[in-house]
């Protein structure tokens, strides 16, 4: 039995669930945080999304069938939560997605939890000019070092389309930074 299979078994059993969940938090908290942070950009927002993500994971564990790896399944929940958070924020502020991106970028510059230099800020700006799908593929591949097969499972897109998207995104970011 693999380590992940044991962890899943312990997570599903009521007697060992809490201990196993603590272990799960230790293993995945940071990875999921950074995954979320690259999507929502601001720490306060990432904090909210991370909390919701782990509560959803906890609630969803009894229904987890093991069709994908635990790792991919949790990334998908985190990704969906982050996207849902952005959509809600956009609706609440009654602005377009482009306006929201500009607003977040300006807030990021003032954020005490962003210490990036000008090049790092320009990289975020470049990524946020990309179309939605290219943006997410680029973030997952470039920052999270996820395999294309994992990204494919998280986003529900074919491998060929993903590779094409990443290639295009990479080119656009390069061009943006060369300006």
């Amino acid at each position: 039995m693999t380590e992940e299979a044991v962890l899943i078994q312990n997570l599903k059993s009521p007697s060992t669930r809490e201990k196993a969940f603590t272990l799960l938090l230790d293993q995945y908290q940071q990875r999921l945080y950074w995954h979320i942070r690259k999507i929502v950009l601001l720490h306060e927002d990432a904090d909210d999304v991370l909390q919701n993500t782990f509560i959803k994971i906890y609630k969803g564990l009894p229904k987890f069938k093991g069709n994908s790896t635990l790792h991919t399944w949790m990334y998908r929940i985190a990704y969906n939560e982050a996207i849902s958070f952005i959509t809600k924020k956009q609706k609440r502020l009654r602005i377009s997605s482009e306006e929201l991106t500009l607003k977040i970028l300006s807030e990021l510059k003032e954020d005490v939890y962003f210490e990036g230099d000008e090049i790092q800020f320009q990289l975020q700006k470049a990524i946020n000019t990309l179309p939605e799908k290219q943006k997410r593929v680029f973030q997952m591949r470039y920052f999270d070092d996820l395999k294309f097969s994992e990204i494919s499972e998280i986003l529900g897109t074919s491998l060929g389309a993903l590779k094409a998207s990443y290639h295009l995104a990479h080119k656009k970011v390069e061009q943006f930074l060369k300006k």
Partner: protein
Amino acid sequence: MRNNNTNTKEGFTIPNNYFNKNKTSILKSISTSNIKDDGFTTSPQYFSSSKKAILKSTINSEPISIFSKKWIFISVTIAASLILLFSISNYNTKTTSNTIVTIAPQIDTTSNNFISDETNTTKDLLLSIYIDDSYTEESIDDYALESLIF
């Protein structure tokens, strides 16, 4: 103002000891909040305090439930009264209309009774005048009027 956190990634930073605090916070929220499938939660004290409140209000004043015997008895009584009232009014209406329909063909203007009927009608009319006059206190000779009628 910049934080002095060393945990950075592409310029992004987090508060000191963030992951430990967040872990505690998540574990606390999972163990203390009553997580339901639809995402709604309650405070851990909610059910015990609401139980107390319900018991208190039950002891002080007994609420009338729509399924209580008292409420059913009131409902049945009102319904029976309404049915009875409706039946009586409906019966009276039918009797009047039937009388008109059945009496009308019995009038025989060629018989001797027809004259006596007319006499009776006149008597009734005069008697009603007599009664009305008693109320208006006009100076009508009662004796003369009675003799005229009878």
